[in-house]
């Protein structure tokens, strides 16, 4: 067993290396425990044992007190739980209230999972970092590592180290004491001649990098939490920047220059399918081959009409062109208009028709349908020349029109009359047609067929 305490000549010559302590090496955990008891009883305070694995029983042998680590962990865990509850309450119930299905903004059961997770997370960090902190690790430089023998401390050797700072420590006495413990070997370990501190430039550089990083992080945090009218920097352009076309603009992408696209031929917009009741929706017995004939006819009619209107001073008194000579009207005449009402004709429908007629039609057409509504009268009075007088219902031409055609006129308009299809429901349009027919009938009746009582009643209306 080597008992020499030696000191290398070079180390001494260099520049006052300091003796930091003594190291005794054992090869058996039991021997180490025995030795520990003796060191403890000898009254040393600053000393330690080093082992490759935790040796149970050495705590008492060395007189190690219980660590405060569990309290640190408990504190961290509680902090985590508090942060979690506070965060969930503040974020979901105060700062940005989430109201979902009338559930409370904050409730204990729903916040348990995250509270638990954050408590565990912080407690785990407390255990790990607390252990490192209390052990003063990481300490990458340690003069004790210079001992070649000490390398086996993580393998199969057991050491007692005596710190030179201990009040009882003396190079000779402590060395003899250690030898008396029956170790394999005792050696000294010395402080380094070079400063263990980092070079100044490196320290300075590292702090500078640290400050710059902190500033950058602060800047990012500032930018993220302040509102700004300028757009954010988008590395990936999300839906904020869609190359979509705007409905009312023009484009050179399509030959017609329109950005909003018309329906494709043959497509039916959602909710617009009407082919299951053609008489009711179109006033036609069936749709002719060319389904667009109605629309086309109408467009041509409008175009022609607009032209005459803009073609300056059209004679004010000029009556509406007779339907017979109009090519569009000729086209419309050929369509298979219904001649019977596709809805049940009832008293109620008639009443409804009267009401709707008076709302929508009478302003121009007059209460009796003679084309003498208040608007017409006023327009004629102004003599602006842009007004086309509505035809009277009681002419031969109009009287002959099939009811489907009347319905079509209400829906799509004619000449200056606008289309009422979007304002009046199909049901109401049929009601108006019904009332219109009644108006026409009222002009055809022979006065003699009416009883005296009825005549009196009619007179009273006026």
């Amino acid at each position, binding site marked *: 067993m080597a008992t020499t305490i030696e000191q290398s000549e070079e180390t001494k010559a260099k520049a006052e290396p300091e003796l930091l302590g003594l190291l005794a090496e054992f090869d058996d955990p039991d021997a180490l425990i025995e030795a520990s008891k003796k060191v403890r009883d000898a009254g040393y305070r600053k000393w330690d044992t080093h082992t490759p*694995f935790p*040796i149970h029983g050495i705590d008492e042998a060395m007189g190690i007190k219980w660590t405060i680590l569990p309290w640190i962990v408990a504190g961290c865990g509680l902090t985590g739980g508090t942060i979690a509850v506070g965060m*969930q309450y503040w974020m979901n119930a105060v700062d940005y209230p989430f109201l979902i299905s009338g559930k409370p903004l904050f409730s204990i059961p729903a916040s348990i999972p995250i509270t638990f997770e954050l408590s*565990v997370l912080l407690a785990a960090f407390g255990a790990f970092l607390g252990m490192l902190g209390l*052990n003063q690790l990481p300490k*990458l430089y340690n003069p*004790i590592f210079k001992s070649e023998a000490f390398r086996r401390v993580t393998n199969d050797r057991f050491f007692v180290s005596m710190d030179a700072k201990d009040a009882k420590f003396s190079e000779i006495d402590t060395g003899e004491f250690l030898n008396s413990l029956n170790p394999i070997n005792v050696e000294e370990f010395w402080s380094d001649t070079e400063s263990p501190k980092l070079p100044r430039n490196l320290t300075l550089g590292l702090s500078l990098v640290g400050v710059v990083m902190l500033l950058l992080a602060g800047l990012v945090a500032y930018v993220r939490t302040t509102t700004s009218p300028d757009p954010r920097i988008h590395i990936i352009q999300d839906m904020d920047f869609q190359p979509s076309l705007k409905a009312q603009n023009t484009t050179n992408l399509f030959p017609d220059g329109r950005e909003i696209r018309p329906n494709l031929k043959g497509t039916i917009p959602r909710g617009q399918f009407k082919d299951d009741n053609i008489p009711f929706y179109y006033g036609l017995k069936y749709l002719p081959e060319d389904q667009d004939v109605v629309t086309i006819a109408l467009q041509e009619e409008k175009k022609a009409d607009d032209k005459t209107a803009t073609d300056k001073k059209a004679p004010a008194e000029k009556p509406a062109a007779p339907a017979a000579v109009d090519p569009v009207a000729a086209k419309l005449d050929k369509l298979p208009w219904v001649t019977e009402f596709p809805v049940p004709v009832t008293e109620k429908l008639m009443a409804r028709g009267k009401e709707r007629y008076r709302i929508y039609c009478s302003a121009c057409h007059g209460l009796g349908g003679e084309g003498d509504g208040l608007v017409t009268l006023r327009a004629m009075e102004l003599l602006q020349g842009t007004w086309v007088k509505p035809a009277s219902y009681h002419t031969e031409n109009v009287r002959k029109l099939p009811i489907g055609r009347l319905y079509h006129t209400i829906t799509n308009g004619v000449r200056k009359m606008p289309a009422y299809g979007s304002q009046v429901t199909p049901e109401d349009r049929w009601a108006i047609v019904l009332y219109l027919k009644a108006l026409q009938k009222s002009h055809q009746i022979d006065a003699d067929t009416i009883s005296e009582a009825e005549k009196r009643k009619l007179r009273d209306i006026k």
Partner: protein
Amino acid sequence: MASVTAEPIDTTIEVPGKRTPLVTGAHNYGTVTDAVCRLAECKTPLAWYVALGISASLMGMLFGLVGYLIITGVGVWGNRSPVFWGWPIVNFVFWVGIGHAGTLISAILFLFRQDWRTGINRAAEAMTIFAVICAGLFPGIHIGRVWLAYWLFPIPNQMAMWPNFRSPLLWDVFAVSTYATVSLLFWYMGMIPDLASLRDRAKGKIQQFAYGLFSLGWNGSSRHWHRYERAYLLLAALATPLVLSVHTIVSFDFAVSQLPGWHTTIFPPYFVAGAVFSGFAMVLTLMIPVRSICGIKDLLTDRHLENMTKVIIATGSMVGYAYAMEFFIAWYGGNRYETFAFINRAFGPYAWAYWIMVTCNVISPQLFWIKKIRTTPWMIFVVCIFVNIGMWFERFVITVTSLSRDFLPSSWGYFKPTIVDVLMLIGSFGLFMTLFLLFCKFLPMVAMAEVKSVMPRPHGKGDH
């Protein structure tokens, strides 16, 4: 020198009144260190490079596909209406489950003072970390706009908006990230003394620097060991409820919804049992070849394998019980949607998946009742492969069957994976194996300090 009995012991024989040694062969402290460190110190065998080459290319394929997915969009997967949670979520739940055995072995068995865990806990914990990495990848890329993944976290933003803390999906974010962090801490902390061993034996400069850096200047001080053991115990105590909570919360993703087949209270315990089941199977799948190749059969004995098969019998039976109970409650509960969901699972369009699951998960672990099978490593290996397949299918069955057949027949659909789905699953195994191979090569695969502390006569006098 403290040494152990010289003659090899058949650790599979239980001698009444006598403890079976946890380390066989003529080992002392030094030879244990040698056996474990040899892996990091010896010349790397060609086979390792070949294996790494294969798994790294699979990993490369995975990352390539992730890039393709990010550029193209999640439509490259088979996820379509009504099955929006297809393979990515199946893979996520599968991989999270794999991780559980590691934490269970290291934490719960530690609290129960099951010393046999020391031989396997390091590798099992490593497996946990790698499995959680694989798991975390999938929901991460499943969110669609990956570059906005930080929206999952409560970070102040210019939208002045916070995440909804009552969503199980957000609980998942917290649960899985906490689990990953705590597992990593637990694993790393357990490794510090062993890294110090490698540091003290390292010859090359790079090794000295790297192991020196990561061992944080550990010097084996008993005062340090005292706090270290306390911290380890506390971490184990924290990890134990954590491991149960993680898969419970993962199951909430399903159970808190209204979907028939998902909306059941059995999910949390059933998911946890399944996770432990699949995790142990994966530990065995990895360790059986590794212990032969790396020559650590003395530290990772047949006895270890047998103990783990017993855990597999227990958890496999729990899983089987859960399947039966789901069916029973679906009938007994009288909810016709629920009843349909389960009949549909067993006899509907996904019956093939259901019966693969039942065969692999319920029948195959029961083979371990036969002593011959649970003591023969290659047989254990085969059964464990079946268990792994079965558990993947379990997640598939749960996720896909319920989504594809919900309340309205008008919204039914049939899920078909795309080639990207399949290759990503394979690629995730590549990622897992790459990490595991690197671990085998560069880190201590067995917790040396812990093994030494359970070897006979290590502390004080007598058998402690």
